[in-house]
């Protein structure tokens, strides 16, 4: 059986004035249909650019693929022609992003924008574009599916008249238009307040369940990831450092960075736990550290770590990229 998504040895760089930033370095990630996978990491770890790569949304140049492949349902994404790509986007992969306002046009009503998306999907799938009235009715159905009240009235409104939570629901509705296999959600609740975040996460969980969506959730927040994902991938400075079932990762992290990240989060339920900083800071990807990219900040680093890049390997049910993964527990 082919995997829904298969990323092998993917290396991506950005060429800029100051040189070449090696933003993704040998990413290995396979996602099966029906999985809920979270990608967690700090600023600059490459999680968003990896997510965008899946739908080939990274601009080239300045981006430049140095190696590896991304396959969606067995098809090489980088080899797709315009038609195949149009089908991939929306029908195969749909994305939602952090700031919904950026993805809505302020001068058109919600209805107009949704009708445009619905009709564009018709075209991408080689059907005749349905008339506006039919698209309008379909848009109302989609808004109802994301639990927005009075969809017909909402379609006549403009983005600025909606709250942040409502805008994100509209974008989720648009993402559902092409009945996608994979939903990629990049920090979908980061711009929202906690009570609204809870509503939107509930909605995503419900859609994943009822529509059999595969979910790839990108977040810096271990709480958001833990709420929705059964499997968690941890990234650091352009590499996958650990990939494990959520339960195992939170309870027995194998990579020293995962452990550092978990210890750095203040936890309301454990007032005696003080958030522990990770010393040092994120490396400059114009000149990344040799060997393991985490070694300059790692409490367990040995001489080998500065020389030899650790590969992802199976340890105790985790995939982990650390020379000393066996010792960490």
């Amino acid at each position: 059986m082919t995997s829904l998504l298969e990323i092998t040895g993917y290396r991506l760089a950005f060429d800029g004035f100051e040189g070449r930033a090696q933003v993704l370095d040998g990413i290995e990630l396979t996602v099966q249909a029906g999985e809920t996978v979270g990608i967690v990491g700090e600023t600059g770890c490459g999680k968003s650019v990896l997510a965008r790569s899946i739908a080939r949304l990274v601009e080239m140049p300045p981006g430049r693929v140095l190696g590896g492949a991304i396959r969606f349902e067995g098809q090489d994404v980088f080899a797709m022609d315009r038609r195949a790509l149009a089908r991939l986007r929306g029908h195969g992969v749909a994305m939602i992003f952090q700031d919904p306002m950026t993805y809505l046009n302020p001068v058109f009503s919600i209805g107009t924008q949704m009708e445009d998306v619905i009709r564009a999907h018709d075209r991408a799938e080689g059907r005749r574009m349905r008339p506006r009235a039919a698209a309008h009715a379909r848009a109302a159905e989609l808004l109802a599916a994301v639990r927005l009240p009075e969809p017909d009235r909402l379609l006549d409104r403009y983005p600025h008249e909606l709250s942040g939570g409502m805008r994100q629901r509209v974008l989720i509705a648009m993402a559902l238009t092409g009945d996608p296999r994979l939903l990629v959600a990049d920090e979908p609740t980061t711009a929202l307040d906690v009570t609204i975040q809870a509503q939107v996460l509930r909605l995503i969980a419900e859609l994943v369940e009822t529509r059999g969506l595969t979910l790839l959730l990108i977040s810096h927040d271990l709480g958001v990831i833990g709420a929705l994902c059964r499997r968690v991938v941890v990234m650091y400075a352009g590499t996958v450092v650990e990939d494990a079932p959520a339960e195992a990762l939170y309870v027995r992290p194998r990579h020293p960075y995962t452990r550092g990240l978990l210890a750095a989060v203040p936890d309301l339920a454990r007032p005696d736990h003080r958030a522990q900083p990770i010393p040092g800071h994120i490396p400059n990807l114009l000149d990344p550290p040799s060997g393991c990219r985490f070694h300059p900040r790692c409490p367990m680093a040995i001489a080998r770590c500065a020389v030899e890049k650790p590969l992802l390997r199976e340890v105790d049910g985790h995939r982990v990229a650390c020379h000393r993964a066996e010792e960490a527990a």
Partner: protein
Amino acid sequence: MSIAPLLEVQGLRKLYPLKGGRAVRAVDGVDLALRPGESLGLVGESGCGKSTVARLVLRLIEPSGGAIRFGGQDIARLPEAALRPLRRDMQLIFQNPHAALNPRRTVFASVAEPLVVQRAASGTALQARVAGLLRDVGLPESFLWRFPHELSGGQKQRVCIARALALEPKLVVLDEPTSALDVSVQAQILDFLGDLRRRFGLTYLFISHNLAVVRQVCDRVAVMYLGRIVEEGPAAQIFAAPRHPYTQALVASVLPPRPGALPDAVLAGDVPNAAEIPPGCRFAPRCPLRMERCTREDPALAGGGPHRVACWAA
């Protein structure tokens, strides 16, 4: 409490008039007191007025009503000239350190500015003082001549903290000081803010939407909703046993860093517009415990002891 508060706010209001005689009631009757050396967390969701309170307390914007007593003196209506000597005692640290530093000025120039403005030091004494401040915030002296773009986010926030400490303030208002930082760096800054408070006997008004951060840094917490404080008390009590239904929802919505903890969406709907605050209790339209009385009468903060709640059902 026998110790006089450093900062005492009563009935503080800030209205922004709209067309047609209406107004956005951004802050709508807030009472607060901070004792010297304590750290009070002001929490709430976007638009609740917490940042407006910070700016009012520092007199960066004009209050529409109410009293602000700083060290016993009402500063709510003091003219700017009379405020200036007091300004050195109250400082502000912003959320986004990238925007709070002038990209064309060196670290030295930014940190020295308050000392120059208040004529507190000059010449070699000034440079020695600034170098000392950098040491206090854990940065080497070599950073004096660097520009903001050469610094990481955490380092920039330390520079902002050094600048805020330059005039040895009594009160520091921190408006989401770690929200723009990664968690590993956030933990560094939180630790460090705790150290500073003990070392210099500072009083913090700590504004944040992140309850877990407030839990770690603050002794007391005030919860704001739609321009009003709805619950206030010792941090341990508020988080362990919240009494206001809004605080309960807020606490229940926090995601712990653990798997499988999808919270119930306790509250339906959004925060109402601050130009159309409902009569009675402002939380009533979203409240799971709403009673008939709540839609008629506006509850005030009440309760004996340090833990007070503005709710008819609590």
